[in-house]
């Protein structure tokens, strides 16, 4: 038991009313396995009322408990989403929108009356009334209501950062937004529907599994119904209660009860990682992905280039260059500038902070005219900037050309117009990616890096990151062509994207993850949206998809393997009276026929409750090859499924035999 247990228990209790509501046959009939249990419970209850005794009443009670526990699993899974939906609903605006009229004036209308194509004005402190694209102005927007991220983001007209979401708050400036969705179909509305599971449809694999489970149910129904004539022939007619108990124990109730909870929880795991999927089908497809297309910039490398090397020229001491480079970048707040300071600190042991003397210097910011930035400190004028901004000699020219050819960016450092050397800015592969790509390879997924760089640079970075393949000098249409080519070979392709350029490729891919920071066109085209706008999350999405399928498979195996022990419990109990030699099959040494049957029914019900946390959390997934994964899961859930009920039923029997009238 762990610290979460009390909380978990309270969640179970809180979900009880919902679970009771789901006892309605309308809800039950959707799940064939549990519907059979539901009918069985009703049947036994009728017998318990007509002819009351302890055994019948106990069996009836535990059969109802089985149905209830199944409902509970679903209610708990749904409950997690409901809380999230409530907080989202609060952000849904009933604010007044300031719509621009054709005459150029402004009118106030309720947000619910906005139509696609309307232009609305939003100023600092106001809530964006609906989803749309910024067509005029630039503003900082607080999107924490949707993303949970408190740092404001910039939204501006044109380009790939023009989309705003209804329910977010403008913090500064004034923007004009063209509304792109109808009220009631906005992003927030879709998100609410999604987390509430209102539009949940069974995914293809779930449908196929339901058919298999129904088949097993029918087989067992036949086996149990046919048992009665054989029993009559053998001279030991069985009561309906015993036959119902046997049937409920044999049909795959464990997986039947948890199936929908597993699906809901899988979606929920995505939502918790701030990913919204438009359908469960997309989540499932994510588990099947064969090829992953990853943009180089921002996904494989940091979005910004970093200083990786200092090259002195004309016999200048390397340390002198480092000191000048540091000085020129001390007051430079750009990521590139900070990376220069970091390099000087790491490699040359210089100080990160400016000294008192250095603080007196005057920062010279970068401008498009001078194409350089730096600091004036006394009579020292230290600058760094583009090579073309300085008068450079042959040696410097050669170094600069070399860096450019490698795909890097050269920055020349000079003091009082004397060139000291060159800083190499280059793409740095994010740490840990090599290992993740190796994991993906083990899972059978090929990674392809897509970049606009020349093939030489692309090759170098691809090799460093450990991707399987790369597409250099890629234009948007090349991307689609690549996706089509992969799909023609029967492979499923996943990609991320944010720009309007990416939209066709996102639509073509089997799993298209759009960045929340991207355009509405990209978000519409993809089948998932990452609210954190983190392209590496695609890897996690694949893992969640796989985990979802594995959990279903593992619990089905567990459920079917359980039947073996139940036969050993119930069959000897049923027929020991006619054929005493069958008592030898009573390997668990269960006390009486009644206690054996009741114990099996109790185990069958309790195992559902025990497995609810596993169904919600998903079985543990370690990336590895298919055979290793199967061997492990088969051992845990197959063999475990055979052994566990023997122990469980035996233990429950020790308690049940104490009940008067049964033991």
């Amino acid at each position: 038991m762990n610290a979460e247990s009390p909380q978990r228990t309270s969640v179970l209790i809180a979900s009880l009313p919902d679970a009771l509501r789901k006892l309605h046959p309308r809800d039950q009939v959707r799940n064939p396995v549990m519907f059979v249990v539901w009918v069985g419970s009703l049947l036994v209850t009728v017998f318990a009322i007509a002819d009351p005794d302890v055994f019948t009443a106990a069996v009836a009670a535990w059969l109802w408990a089985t149905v209830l526990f199944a409902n509970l699993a679903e209610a708990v899974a749904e409950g997690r989403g409901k809380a999230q939906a409530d907080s989202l609903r609060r952000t849904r605006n009933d604010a007044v929108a300031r719509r621009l009229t054709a005459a150029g004036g402004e009118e106030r209308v309720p947000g619910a009356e906005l139509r696609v194509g309307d232009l609305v004005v939003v100023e600092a402190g106001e809530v964006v009334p609906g989803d749309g694209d910024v067509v005029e102005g630039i503003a900082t927007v607080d999107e924490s209501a949707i993303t949970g991220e408190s740092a404001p983001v910039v939204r501006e007209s044109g380009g790939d950062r023009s989309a705003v979401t209804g329910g977010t708050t403008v913090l500064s400036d004034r923007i004009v937004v063209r509304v792109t969705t109808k009220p009631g179909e906005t992003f927030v509305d879709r998100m609410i529907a999604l987390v509430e599971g209102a539009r949940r449809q069974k995914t293809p694999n779930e449908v196929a599994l339901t058919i298999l489970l129904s088949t097993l149910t029918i087989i067992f129904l036949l086996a149990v119904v046919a048992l009665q004539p054989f029993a009559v022939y053998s001279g030991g007619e069985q009561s309906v209660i015993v036959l119902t108990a046997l049937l409920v124990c044999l049909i795959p109730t464990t997986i039947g009860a948890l199936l929908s909870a597993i699906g809901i929880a899988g979606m929920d795991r995505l939502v918790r990682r701030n990913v919204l999927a438009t359908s469960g089908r997309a989540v499932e497809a994510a588990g099947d992905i064969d090829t992953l297309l990853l943009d180089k910039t921002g996904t494989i490398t940091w979005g910004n280039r970093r200083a990786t090397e200092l090259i002195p020229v004309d016999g200048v001491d390397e340390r002198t260059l480092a000191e000048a480079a540091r000085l020129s970048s001390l007051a430079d707040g750009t990521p590139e500038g900070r990376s220069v300071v970091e390099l000087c600190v790491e490699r040359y042991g210089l100080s990160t902070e400016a000294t008192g003397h250095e603080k007196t210097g005057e920062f010279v910011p970068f401008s498009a005219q001078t194409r350089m930035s730096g600091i004036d400190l006394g009579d020292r004028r230290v600058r760094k900037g583009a090579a073309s901004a300085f008068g450079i000699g042959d040696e410097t020219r050669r170094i600069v050309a070399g860096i450019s050819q490698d795909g890097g960016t050269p920055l020349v450092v000079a003091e009082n117009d004397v060139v000291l050397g060159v800083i190499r800015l280059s793409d740095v592969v994010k740490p840990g990616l090599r290992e993740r790509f190796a994991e993906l390879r083990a899972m059978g997924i090929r990674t392809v890096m897509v970049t606009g760089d020349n093939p030489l640079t692309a090759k170098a970075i691809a090799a460093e990151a450990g991707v399987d393949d790369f597409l250099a000098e890629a234009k948007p249409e090349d991307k689609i062509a690549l996706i089509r080519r992969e799909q023609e070979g029967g492979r499923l392709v996943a990609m991320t994207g944010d720009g309007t350029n990416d939209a066709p490729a996102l639509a073509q891919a089997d799993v298209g993850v759009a960045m929340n920071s991207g355009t509405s066109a990209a978000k519409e085209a993809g089948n998932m949206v990452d609210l954190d706008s983190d392209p590496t999350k695609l890897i996690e999405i694949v893992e969640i998809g796989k985990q979802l399928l594995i959990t279903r498979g593992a619990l089905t195996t567990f459920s079917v393997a359980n039947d073996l022990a139940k036969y050993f419990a119930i069959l000897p109990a049923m027929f020991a009276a006619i054929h005493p030699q069958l008592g030898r099959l009573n390997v668990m040494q269960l006390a009486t026929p009644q206690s054996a049957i009741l114990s099996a029914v109790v185990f069958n019900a309790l195992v559902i409750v025990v497995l609810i946390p596993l169904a919600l959390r998903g079985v543990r997934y370690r990336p590895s090859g298919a055979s290793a994964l199967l061997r492990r899961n088969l051992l845990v859930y197959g063999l475990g499924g055979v052994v566990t009920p023997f122990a469980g039923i035996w233990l429950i029997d020790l308690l049940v035999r104490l009940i008067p009238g049964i033991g």
Partner: protein
Amino acid sequence: MLLNVLLGEVTPGGVGTGLYGILVLAVITMFLAGLMVGRTPEYLGKKLGRREVTAAAVSILAMPTVMLIGAGVTAVLPSTPDALGNPGPHGLSEILYAYASASNNNGSAFAGITVTSDWFQASLAVCMLLGRFVPIVAVLALAGSLAAQRKVPQTAGTLPTTGPLFATLLAGSVVLVAALTFVPALALGPVAEALL
């Protein structure tokens, strides 16, 4: 022998239906195994979806349905004890064998049971018809659906259908699917006989 027939003819030497029997069970096995490794299940490069599972399910259902219903009705018919050569558990074994064999094998019967009455003739004939042709139709549907699919290329994430792991798994599902279906009936007949 009875066990063998009930296991659905998958062991070599059955009467002509062994291969498709085991292929259907392989489809079911791969479906479960595929789920367990986190991919949409596939077998020999073909995806196993709703249609394939339905066809496999119908094929699996047919035999136990006709056999259990036929044997069940027979067991309670008043005329039955006269037709049996032996009373008690062995008599039940005779009935089970007759129907199992008719549904799924060569239609033979144990010595001792007389299957010449109208009921036996008619019911065993129906068993033969449905127990054989329903699976054949279902298997053809399954084959058609698989053949129409494009082959999915193999990757490291594809489950290999060779080697001891797959063999064990397949054997396990054969035994489990068949055993779980027939154990209750067998317990009263052959098992009770054996433990006497």
